[in-house]
């Protein structure tokens, strides 16, 4: 009897250790990386640099939370990068070509981006294309739309229009503030907080997780699954649009496929976020921590003078490790 209880205890200690690692491994990694970079580099821990990290991850985080929301209903939105590019082009063109004010331009851009979400939902819900393939298709479509709209080039103040005139619109000063510290960080934190509260504390969030867990059982529970899936893709597109607007504010112009680069970081952050607190599900807070992890890594490696072309190796390995923590538990 004593032997079996000792065995049991030994097993449970090991069990608890892995349980702990699974729940908090990602957070520990962030802390360890910060400590490591702090020791290795003099300037890493300076407040200015830490703020710099937060600023640099804001756009990724906002887009990644959109991806997370598409993941909660068992979907996967790959078109977020293109949507961000489109939003970038739209919002700048509304200023430069059409002379709109900040509020109008942002609202119109977000409305048009929600159409992208409806288009995705149409492909998935009506045409029944699997989520990933449908949004892969719309990735190309929206990317093309964004480029065609901007005549395959960038949009800047005082640009030469195809008609031969010079564009007369200006980007308002107020709009430029969106992309500066502290506004951009506040927006990121607000989006994270609202998304996290909505997902974990409201019944709508619980229903979305239910759909992600077992769509057929959710439907037979009387949940209108189609509505929730459409809503998830619209929200995802809106957040991608917001990311694109923040990007526009930061760079003060529209560049070809400027949002495309954010897709993979956003997807990575969303997936790394699964393991936070052992939830095993997409969630906003985890996504934020995932983005912080990627941002710290990027920033610290730059400080250590790791060449930019080698950075993806480490980023990829960290993603693999984070996913291993999530899946090894599910075995």
């Amino acid at each position, binding site marked *: 009897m004593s032997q079996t209880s000792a065995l*049991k205890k030994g097993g449970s200690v090991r069990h608890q250790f892995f349980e702990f690692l699974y729940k908090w491994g990602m957070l520990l990694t962030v802390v360890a990386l910060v400590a490591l970079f702090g020791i290795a580099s003099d300037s890493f821990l300076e407040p200015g640099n830490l703020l710099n990290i937060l600023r640099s991850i804001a756009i990724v985080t906002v887009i990644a939370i959109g991806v997370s929301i598409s993941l909660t209903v068992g979907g996967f939105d790959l078109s977020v990068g293109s949507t961000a590019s489109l939003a970038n082009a739209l919002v700048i063109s509304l200023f430069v070509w059409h002379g709109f004010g900040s509020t109008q331009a942002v609202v119109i851009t977000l409305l048009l981006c929600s159409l992208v979400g409806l288009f995705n939902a149409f492909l998935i819900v009506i045409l029944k294309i699997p989520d990933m393939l449908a949004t892969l298709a719309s990735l190309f479509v929206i990317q093309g739309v964004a480029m065609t709209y901007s005549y395959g080039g960038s949009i800047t103040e005082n640009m030469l229009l195809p008609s031969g005139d010079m564009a007369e619109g200006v980007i308002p000063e107020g709009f430029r503030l969106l992309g500066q510290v502290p506004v951009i960080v506040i927006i990121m934190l607000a989006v994270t907080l609202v998304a996290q509260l909505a997902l974990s504390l409201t*019944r*709508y969030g*619980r229903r979305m997780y239910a759909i992600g*867990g077992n769509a057929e059982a959710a439907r*037979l529970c009387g949940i*209108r699954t189609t509505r929730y899936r459409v809503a998830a893709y619209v929200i995802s597109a809106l957040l991608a649009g917001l990311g694109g607007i923040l990007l526009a504010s930061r760079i003060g112009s529209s560049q070809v496929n400027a949002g495309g680069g954010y897709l993979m970081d956003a997807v990575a952050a969303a997936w790394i976020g699964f393991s936070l607190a052992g939830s095993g599900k997409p969630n906003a807070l985890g996504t934020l921590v995932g983005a912080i992890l990627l941002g710290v890594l990027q920033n610290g490696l730059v400080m250590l003078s790791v060449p930019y072309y080698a950075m993806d190796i480490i980023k990829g390995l960290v993603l693999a490790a984070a996913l291993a923590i999530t899946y090894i538990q599910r075995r």
Partner: protein
Amino acid sequence: MTVVNRIEMRNISVAFGDIKVLTEVNFQLTGGSIHALTGANGAGKSTLMAVLCGSYDHYQGDILLNGQALSLRLPRDAKQAGIHLVQQEVDSALIPGLSVAENIMLDKLAEPGHLYRWRDIYQQARSALAQLDVELDVRKRIEQCSLAEKQQILLARALSHQCRFLILDEPTAPLDEHESARLFNVVRKLQANGIGIVFISHRIHELKAICDQMTVLRDGRLIESGPMGHLSGEQIVEKMLGHQLETLYPPHRPQVADNTLLQVNGLHDDNHLNNISLRLRAGEILGIAGLAGAGKTELCKALFGATRSRVDSGELKGKRWQPKDPADSVINGLVLVPEERRKEGIFIDESLTMNLSICADEQFSRGGFFNRGKATRWAEDIIQRLGIRATGPDQTLRRLSGGNQQKAAIGKWLRSNADVLIFDEPTKGIDVKAKTDLFVLIDELARQGKGIIYASGEFAELVGLCDRICILWDGRIVAELDGHSATEETLLFYSTGGTPA
């Protein structure tokens, strides 16, 4: 076969984390014998056999083959010792897209260094099937095979090896009577060839018919082991339950008032259901009897609005109504407990609390915000009321037995304002104890004035529980009987296409 093989398991214990699934169980199996292994769900039958198949590397205890110690830590070890398993869920062991022959010879194909010699593969597959007296086109794709054929394929796979011991996990569960009889012949033949067979089943009469040895497990412990003839059917059930079996079914409810709750006339769907009309009164249990393929599940889903159908006219709680979609049905108080529990009825990786609160989440919410504490208290209440065996409301359903999962699938509707509950094969894959609990629960719901539709192919249950029984055959209702006077024989007669004389 002159040597009689004998395998002995001594003091086998298995634990997952802190939960003990098996505690010092002994089990012996001799060649040429059919050994019944029975017990309620969650008793540890499958775990014990999984140990024998080398599925767990962390069991404690000894296994002896013909007196020699044997280590079964890997599936390979078991196969080398000649121990083979025919799974209950046949699809989990078959590879769709491959032919019958490839599936039979799968283990051989997995060995390294083999070229595909189609002629040999077909030849060997045919000879394995011939041992079972089965004629089956070995080039056929798995998808085109019936459940019984798939089972034969797995049997043939086991026999394509040097098979000394064969484990059949609930082999008769998916089979009809004719197919079961055929299986029994095969099993007896294998027995005559000196193979030791473990036969897992809940159906006592089958065990009595075919087995010579018996072992009963309960809560992971050995309760009884010995020759089959020693115990009567009732005694076996008592051993499984751990207490005397009073009666399986609740006493009959008093005659109900003629108060129509649900009525449909002329229900059709696109492929199977043909002009179905039925009426359900408040406080009544209406049985839908039918064999596999009669259209029970289709009817249940059509009534619930989960599949498309048309009705000439319909009425629910005095209002004009027709099935639209599940969400609409739930709002109107008509709910379904589906047949495919794992696929359609529960969220397997979610907690009991989540499973029990998801359907009535507005009752736990204020202003859209979900009150977790209230939901947990409700889950605790349901766990208590339905006797769900779990460590607590936070436990995920994956860790519960089939019967307890089913209770959760039903429990989720108890908070909503459901007036009509449709049960589709609710006792599928659950043990005697859980069944009795379920019958009591359903009876209680009827006594509260709810209307119950109980669709099942288990005629004894229908006769024991229902006030009226409609018999479904080929998508039509061919007869309606009074539940108190109906017998299993008449139900069987009508549901096999017999017409009133």
